């Protein structure tokens, strides 16, 4: 008799756990879809985008719509999967689109000019002295762009859109 009542209690507890888990799962699903297809916050750090982004780390919002509809252009700060290490994502500025002619300094006295091939972009960090970018690994295929950064959320005194 007591066993039956225990089983009844257990069943209702299990059902409640399942319901709560389903709610959490649905929420995570929604979060995931928003993060991948709409907008996501990202922590970016490193010296390569000074003075636009800080060394110690900024939280920025990146939107994932523009690169899918081809609206990424020169001057945009983008998140790009590194062609050298596929597990890292870099934050750089697009300096040239396909077909553009790009001049860059390999060392202070010697400059080179290249044309960006079809389907590729040329990315550079704003801090050219401390950035590993297209000047080192060449143009990057457009397909590696993950999102476009449009807004800074942290630190609070940097809150707002990024300067061009």
């Amino acid at each position: 008799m007591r066993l039956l009542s225990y089983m009844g209690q257990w069943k209702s507890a299990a059902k409640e756990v399942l319901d709560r888990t389903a709610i959490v799962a649905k929420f995570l699903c929604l979060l995931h879809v928003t993060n991948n297809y709409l907008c996501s916050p990202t922590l970016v750090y490193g010296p390569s985008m000074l003075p636009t982004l800080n060394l110690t780390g900024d939280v920025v919002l990146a939107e994932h719509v523009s690169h899918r509809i081809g609206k990424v252009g020169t001057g945009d700060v983008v998140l790009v999967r590194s062609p050298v290490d596929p597990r890292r994502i870099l934050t750089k500025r697009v300096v040239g689109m396909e077909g553009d002619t790009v001049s860059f300094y390999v060392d202070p006295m010697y400059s080179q000019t290249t044309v960006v091939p079809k389907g590729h972009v040329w990315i550079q960090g704003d801090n050219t002295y401390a950035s590993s970018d297209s000047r080192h690994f060449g143009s990057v295929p457009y397909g590696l762009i993950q999102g476009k950064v449009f807004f800074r959320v942290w630190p609070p005194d940097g809150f707002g859109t990024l300067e061009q």
Partner: protein
Amino acid sequence: MVGLVGRLWNLQYKSIVKEASGKALAVAKFFCVLHVTNTYLCTFALAYGPNMVLTFNLTGDMFLAERLSIKFGKVGPGDIVLLRYPESPRKVMVKCLLGLESHSVTYVVDPMKSDRRDTVVVPKGHVWVEGDNIYNSRDSRQFGPVPYGLLEGKVFCKIWPPKEFGSLMKSGMKDPDL
């Protein structure tokens, strides 16, 4: 009288809307699951064209490609992979992976014109892909090694035509170094 009819109509309308939104939610949940499976587990695609003639037919075969191997770095030479075109980010192609980073790959530069071979070391973070049909395939011999980040999936099973159904672990290509 009018009030009663109005109330009845409201009730019916509400229940219709409730049922419709319930069904719509179920459909949306189903698509969500389908989408997550497609993006993170397994996807299917149609391959056509002459460049993988030893493995796929000219007119088109359907196959399944899984995405876990790519994310965990478990692809190697001999695998058939699905990857984005470096030149057109919206197009996807199917090729045979011949070399990972720091592998030394020997390839025939232009088989229609000569037998000249060239050797290249695949740079860090890149892979070398070639089609089975080297006479008619646009691959790493033309556009160079491809960044690993452009790989989308590893082909493991052909599902159409039905008489060719089955697993496709390594391509039908002979040893490329011979």
